[in-house]
């Protein structure tokens, strides 16, 4: 057993840090640190810098223009990026659609769409969830009817993150109602400028509007935009869910959040002393830090198995649960560290005023509220428990 990174990995980590130090605009990092919404241009700008370096698609093989990183390298990149408060790479094109096209798309689809993802020609969003199909994703109803050389799509998608910036959406749609509900689903690429597509923002309880509803009303989609075979979409969607989860534990985000919490606890006064000297609060920080130390190693154990070519199993569900628990606990402690000061929320709309010198406080409150989503989306923690128990029952 050897817990150390190899010399090559250490050199790679140094290169990532160097890149971040020279290319990441401090103002952008600060905005990101405060969990403020980035503009489309800011996100595209960061993508462009990474693309120039050849690092935008760490998970893609080199043949498709990716960096072809190992699981460990991707982990290092994600962790260093999170610690430096770099923008997160928008995952929909790079991390989600890309691998599906590479595995199941036609040569034409690969040649056309993959370079456009890297160049930033398209901004993709994801059309999976529907109002009636949340945890029960396969219960989706948005339907696509084949009419000649088009599908005609009708229905609704929801929780479409950053859909307001997108020109393209990849959707799971129902093409058949026969057999098991998983069997009538297809994977379709839809141009959002097509007549009949409407995007409506959903404001969340923290006041942000980063997710959307997308409505389809007789939307015509060319049949060449079908990925793989008709009625096999569930297979492609599941492939995504089980194979593109290297960052599911969110170790980098948790590390950055822990650093921030310690900084806040050192600055906030409690009973006349810095809060980090309060035994009860210090114990809560320590409890979470100790959890993170262990989870971080669980993550590495899993990566080291993945690096040897074995597919991750139930471990990704375990990391999802523990990872979100830790991040939510860190967010909760950070908000509570501010005590009576944390009673306002930043409002993205309207000019209704804002407390003085309180950017960090507002960010802590908003971030706590916003990150309640972590244990809900991408398969809620209840769904993950079901997956673990199901595996245990068989084992």
């Amino acid at each position: 057993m050897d817990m150390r990174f190899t010399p090559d990995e250490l050199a790679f980590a140094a290169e990532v840090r160097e890149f971040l130090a020279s290319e990441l605009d401090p103002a952008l990092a600060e905005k990101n640190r405060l969990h403020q919404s980035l503009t489309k241009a800011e996100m595209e700008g960061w993508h462009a810098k990474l693309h120039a370096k050849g690092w935008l698609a760490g998970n893609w093989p080199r043949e498709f223009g990716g960096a072809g990183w190992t699981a460990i390298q991707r982990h290092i990149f994600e962790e260093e990026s999170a610690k430096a408060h770099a923008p997160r790479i928008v995952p929909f094109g790079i991390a989600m659609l890309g691998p599906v096209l590479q595995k199941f798309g036609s040569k034409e689809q690969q040649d056309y769409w993959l370079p456009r993802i890297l160049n930033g020609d398209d901004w993709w969003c994801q059309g999976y969830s529907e109002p009636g199909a949340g945890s029960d994703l396969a219960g989706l109803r948005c339907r696509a009817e084949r009419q000649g050389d088009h599908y005609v799509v009708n229905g609704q998608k929801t929780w479409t993150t950053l859909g307001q910036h997108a020109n393209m959406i990849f959707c799971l749609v129902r093409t058949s109602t026969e057999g098991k509900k998983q069997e009538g689903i297809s994977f379709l690429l839809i141009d959002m400028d097509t007549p009949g597509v409407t995007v409506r923002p959903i404001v969340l309880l923290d006041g942000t509007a980063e997710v959307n509803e997308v409505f389809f009303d007789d939307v015509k989609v060319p049949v060449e935009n079908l990925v793989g075979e008709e009625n096999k979409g569930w297979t492609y969607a599941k492939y995504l869910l089980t194979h593109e989860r290297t960052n599911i534990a969110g170790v980098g985000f948790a590390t950055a959040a822990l650093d921030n919490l310690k900084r806040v606890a050192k600055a906030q006064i409690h009973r006349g002393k810095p809060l980090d000297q309060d035994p009860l609060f210090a114990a809560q920080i320590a409890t979470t830090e100790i959890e993170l130390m262990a989870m971080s190693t669980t993550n590495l154990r899993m990566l080291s198995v993945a690096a040897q070519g074995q597919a991750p199993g139930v471990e990704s569900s375990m990391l999802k649960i523990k990872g979100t628990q830790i991040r939510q606990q860190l967010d909760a402690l950070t908000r509570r560290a501010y005590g009576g000061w944390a009673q306002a929320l930043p409002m993205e709309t309207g000019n209704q005023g804002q407390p003085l010198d309180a950017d960090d406080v507002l960010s802590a409150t908003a971030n706590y509220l916003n990150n309640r989503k972590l244990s809900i989306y991408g398969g809620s923690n209840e769904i993950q428990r079901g997956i673990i128990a199901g595996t245990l029952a068989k084992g």
Partner: protein
Amino acid sequence: MDFALSDEHRMLQDTLRGLLARHQGDDLWPALAEAGVIGALLTEDEGGFDGSGSAIALTFEELGRAGASMPLVAAMIGASALATAGQGDLAAEVAEGSARVAFADAEPGTRYDRGVAISVDGDRLTGRKTMVAGAEDARAIIVTTADALWLVDAKAEGLTLNAYPLMEGGRGADLTFADTPATRLGALDDFGAALSRGILGHSAFALGGIIAASDLTLDYLKTRKQFGRAILEFQALAHRIADLAVEVEQARSAVTNLSGHLTAEPAIRDRHVQACKATVGRVARLVAEESVQLHGGIGMTEEYALAGMIRRLLAADTAMGDADYHLERFANGEPAWA
């Protein structure tokens, strides 16, 4: 032993429910004042006609259920403190609703210490208070410092106000004092009764919100279908809502305890102040987080009624010392107000 409401208090409850069904936002305060609700929160000495723990608890529970956000706690603390300090005229105006006062307690840069961001020089205050609910509408501000309570006129020299929306729904402000003249009302621990009633107000308000949020969640679990059945039929979720129901009863009993010991000797009252706020704060956060989780995505949307409830629950925990703050003082055997 009798835990039932008296006839008077049942009438008060009916009045409140009627008012809260008809009035909202800016309309609500005058309606409550006119109906005598502010008076019900205060004793005769304070310009009111009741002021019992039971009246306070039921009033704020109803406000909490309805999600009415307004600094009525500040009015209650203010009028009581003013009466105690011999400022009966202003107290009476507050009691009848013709004047409003705000309560400036929280400070930037500290969890719940007082006197970190504000200092006293003779009869002048310098520094800052934050998150002062209802400051824009107040004629006067009751201000806490390290060991005392002060009265500051809203138009006093050197006082500037920067207002913004509060998480709970209403508006608050940062108040900046620059050598601002103030009247010392007395030492902080002279006002234990007034301040403890503030804790009861926030706690009962939270209790109302706890009940509203858990009722809404239960309704959702009964109606929402996934995998072909109501999600309340999934045992893991059913057991979690059962555990929430147990905690809701704990919160109710904690409020009952403080309500029943509001006029007990200070050492006993303070234990109930701390136990109540610690229990209700803990349950409020638990219910907030579990309600969102049990709802799933819909529970995070602003359009859905839960969002406001969640924010009010967090705010009620945070106001005047959160669960951890009061737990620590209880564990140390310290007084609540010193």
